[in-house]
């Protein structure tokens, strides 16, 4: 296992810091890209399945703690997204921007559907927090648009700090 602990810890902190700063400064009337979801997908796309699902799980829990979603919902969804993309990384050429956009769109759709499902299934009291279809569509488009940038950054960081080669071993 070539998992470099410092790199992943650094990525976890840097990703959260970036998300915290950008989301607090985001003032234009469109949703901010889901940087952490995109980063999880990008890490999964380089074959680092365990890292993707671990980052996804803990980033998701942080998002749950920060936001109003049920605690554990985003943790599981991001972990599942990282696991799924990591599993698919052998079949997908994630170097291509089109593949990145499709992965981002699919990941966002997965995220939105399962987040809504978790709200409907587990929200005991109160109104389930299900996003309106227009907002969900806008989020999907924005994530797809931002995906090439995030994928490029994560893949470049991976090549720089993890020795250059991608891993498609299921266990990393």
């Amino acid at each position: 296992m070539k998992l470099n602990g410092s790199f992943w810890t650094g990525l976890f902190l840097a990703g959260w810091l970036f998300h915290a700063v950008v989301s607090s400064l985001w003032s234009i009337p469109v949703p901010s890209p889901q940087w952490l979801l995109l980063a999880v997908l990008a890490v999964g796309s380089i074959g680092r399945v365990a890292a993707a699902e671990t980052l996804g799980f803990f980033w998701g829990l942080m998002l749950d703690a920060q936001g109003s979603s049920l605690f554990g919902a985003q943790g599981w969804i991001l972990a599942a997204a990282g696991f799924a993309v990591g599993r698919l990384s052998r079949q997908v050429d994630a170097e291509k921007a089109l593949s990145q956009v499709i992965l981002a769109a699919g990941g966002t759709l997965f995220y939105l559907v399962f987040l809504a499902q978790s709200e409907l299934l587990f929200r005991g009291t109160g109104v389930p927090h299900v996003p309106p279809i227009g907002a969900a569509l806008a989020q999907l488009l924005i994530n797809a648009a931002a995906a090439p940038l995030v994928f490029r950054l994560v893949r470049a960081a991976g090549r720089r700090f993890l020795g250059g080669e991608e891993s498609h071993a299921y266990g990393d």
Partner: protein
Amino acid sequence: MFRKHFSSLLFIVYSLLGLAFLSWSADNAVQSLRHTVHYLMSPWSDPPLAAMEQLGDTGRNLSRLISQDRVARSLEERGLTRTMDRLWCEAVEAENVRLRTLTGLAPIPRYRPLPARVWSWETSAALRSVTINRGARDGITATDPVVAFVGDKPAVLGQVAEVFPDKARIMLLTDPSAAVSAVVPRTGEQGVIEGEGPSRLVLNYLYSDTAAAPGDEVLTAGLGELFPSGLLLGTVVGLEDQGIESFRRALVKPAIQATRVREVLVLLREGRAPVKRP
């Protein structure tokens, strides 16, 4: 075996953990965690926000500085132009003085404006004069021109006909006994403008083939040095035969309606000291 399925096992662990959090309604139990996260996030957002605001202020200040620099450059250029104009005027004036000395010509008079308020109107139908609240003690003498502003253009109202110590009566341009040398600047033709009642002037002594046309402005010509040249008199509204062979006359609408005037300027010839009030 374990290594091969490590990520799958890990995913199962995370799934179970996630399901446990969701099923046990951990939402309520993590309120303190939420508060901690918010507490941790707030310091991250404040400095960047402050930095962004600072950056915005800097940008605005820089933009203002550039704008001010442009204004300063423009003013500097205009100042230089004015300086050059002034130097040129001084040179021309010096040349004029020399030429006047050589030819014996009297200098063109300069005028100093004296503001005054309309005191009363003559209430006859002809409305031939108005009285102002300045008189001989302010330096006004008979025949001094009186102007008022039409927009930003000075226009002739009339001239001082009678002077009292603190008042003066102004004979309006529309008085039939008023006459002023005039010019149509578009064509350069000169004539004499005379009053013909409260709302009508005539410009006499235009040649029969005059090019003056309705809409042309009529200004003072400055002949006789009674009125400075370039003051607005009125606008041509029509032409008609004068009754004298070879001449036509233009009907002119006065630039000023006397009943609308509240303040006027009496143009005092410079070099004439005003009489001091007791």
